[in-house]
């Protein structure tokens, strides 16, 4: 028999440990890579990431915060951004992604729409000479992302050589780069969807209203409006979201069309440099 544990205490100490680890990673990225930027999609994960960065640097984030803008985000998402940029004193920059006609035509349609962001990211990295991009992906979102490392090298064309990843343990992170390469840094890699919501509630972090919905449907994962659907849900408060997640078995990205078009759609996107 396992030991009885105090769930509340266990939850608080798990969140504290996750927070400390993520701040360590963000500080490490800044110390060792320096020329870095952070992606902010305005979703719950990257907003928690921005929050953690403010904590890491005591209020003022010492690097730019970037939106890869497809101009296809929901209006509520843009409004959410506008409410925070000044308030949080962010060095916010928007990068307009090139049109769909420029991306790999062999990808399925929704993946093609998503791949615009890959192109936008490549452009903004090249123009600014960034060597590190901090972003809020998590291992539990998707099986291909589960194979990620915290510090993950990308080749000059942005592609991911997943066969050749470095060992990573005991907070040792390999930050060596060849010319033209950059690192993707994933401070939330070990968090689960539930952890993010519990932390958002505990810290009272703002989140976009679309996650709450109208009592019948809500967005569980936010992507472009042309390729993202709401899920059936009666949750109208963060407590109800947390209760729903504790009960459900359905995957988080069920509303994200690009994940379901073909067996390898997401792997091809990520190998090509998608987040």
């Amino acid at each position, binding site marked *: *028999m*396992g*030991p009885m*544990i105090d769930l509340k205490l266990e939850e608080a100490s798990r969140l*504290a*440990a996750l*927070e*400390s680890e993520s*701040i*360590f990673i963000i*500080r*490490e990225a*800044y*110390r*060792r890579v320096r020329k870095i930027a952070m992606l902010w999609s305005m979703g719950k994960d990257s907003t928690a990431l921005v929050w953690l960065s*403010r*904590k*890491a*640097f*005591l*209020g003022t984030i010492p690097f730019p915060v970037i939106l890869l803008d497809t101009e296809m985000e929901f209006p509520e998402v843009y409004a959410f951004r506008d409410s925070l940029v000044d308030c949080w004193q962010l060095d916010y920059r928007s990068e307009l992604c090139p049109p769909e006609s420029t991306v790999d035509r062999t990808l399925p349609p929704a993946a093609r729409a998503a791949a615009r962001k890959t192109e936008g990211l490549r452009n903004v990295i090249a123009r600014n000479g960034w060597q590190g991009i901090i972003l809020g992906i998590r*291992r*539990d979102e*998707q*099986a*291909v992302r*589960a*194979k990620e*490392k915290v510090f993950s*090298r990308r080749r000059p064309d942005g592609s991911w050589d*997943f*066969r*050749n*990843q*470095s*060992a*990573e*343990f*005991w*907070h*040792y992170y*390999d930050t*060596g*780069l*060849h010319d033209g390469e950059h690192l993707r840094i994933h401070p939330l890699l*070990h968090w*689960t969807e539930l952890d993010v919501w519990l932390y958002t509630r505990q810290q009272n972090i703002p989140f976009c209203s679309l996650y709450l919905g109208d009592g019948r449907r809500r967005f569980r994962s936010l992507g472009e409006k042309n390729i993202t659907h709401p899920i059936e849900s009666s949750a109208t408060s963060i407590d109800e979201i947390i209760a729903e997640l504790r009960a459900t*078995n*359905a*995957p988080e990205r*069920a509303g994200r069309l690009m994940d*379901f078009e073909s*067996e*390898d759609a997401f*792997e091809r996107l990520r190998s090509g440099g998608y987040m």
Partner: protein
Amino acid sequence: VNLVLVGHVDHGKSTLLARLLVDTGAVPENKLSELEAICKRRSSQVELSFLLDAFQIERDQAISIDSTRVWFSSKHRRYAVADAPGHFEFLRHVVTGAADASLAVLVVNALAGPSEQTGRHAAILSLVGINNVLVAVNKMDLVAFSRERFEAVRDQAESLLANHRLSAHQIVPTAALEGDNVVRHSDRTPWYKGETVLEALDRYEPLPARNPPLRLPVQDVYRRDSERLVAGNLQGGPLAEGDLLVFSPPGLAARVATIRRFGEDHKPARHGEAIALALDRDIFVEPGYVASRAEQAPYVTSHFGASIFWFWRTDLLSGSLNSTPVPQATQTISRSNCIDVKSGTGFEYEPAVYASPGGTWSSNDNPGFHPINTYIYDEPNQSFTDYFLYQSYGGYWVTVATLNWSWHYEASRALPSLPDSEAWPTPVQLGGSAPAYVTLSSSPLPSYNSC
């Protein structure tokens, strides 16, 4: 509880893990139907391991390439599992997966028995400080659930573990594809009265967390307005404003003036917390220093012996390697009986590598130490893995080491000017098997790990 799953390629690790996920209800509803559809398209029977082997090439070749982390819960607690690839080429990911684990699950094929790779995995587990291993003797269906075969493999596994100073937490006969003795007791092994894999996991009690001595490895120093803030994640504690700290290696002392956090200041800092400190006087502190209480200071050394695990495709040769622990210093590694991953030999737990920061040496017979740099470490079996060799930040090759001996100073004293090699005291045998990491590089340019 963090688990790592290891074993030879094809012995069924990913299938065992997938079975645990399915039978504990951790797999989302549509995942299984998605999987059935994919397997149908591939005209194969349902491959549970596809749940974890997400890459096309992993599915095509039916092997795992990189470690995956997944979660499941029993009635008693939550588990995070790293599924380490079994293939020889991907050994470094076994280290990645094992380093954070407190319990390992070793999967052994009932038909084939423990393999050479099983031994390598056991060696890695031992090296990173894992003591307990749950063994699943898997694919019992291939040996017709034979009790004799199970007992033979069980005995082999036990002696293999013992050779690597590991103990068997439980040894369970399983057929993971069908779920026998994974979560459900099997009626095909009536002779086995022991626990299922999940029951054995639930019985495991992690060692109670020790209260480690207070350490603040300095991660960075920030300037904010007129203040210099020393940032890092506190270990041990609590640490309060007014407390006296000693920074190793230079042995400089200062008091904590203010504990800075975003939004809230002044509360004592607790174990694990990421903090920033303003000090009461202007001392020079840089990343890599470790702060402690004066009476509990860590040791400082520039000479040590360690058993290391070398990841690179070329051999680790005497005098051929330079490490760059800090920019101004170089270090040469010499080897005596290096662990050879390919042959699986050399796990003698003898001091395997002599590392001398600074200068060069030609052989073990004539070391010619020219110490320049210093390392900081704690007593064996303290949890110093996070900050031992903290100064080695910036090295390119990372490997695992077990520290065996060193010459050291008490860090609470300022480091004296270092004597030449003849004047060094007898090395202190550290005993134990305290794991640590060491960074090494074979060239001034960063390159990739390859095995």
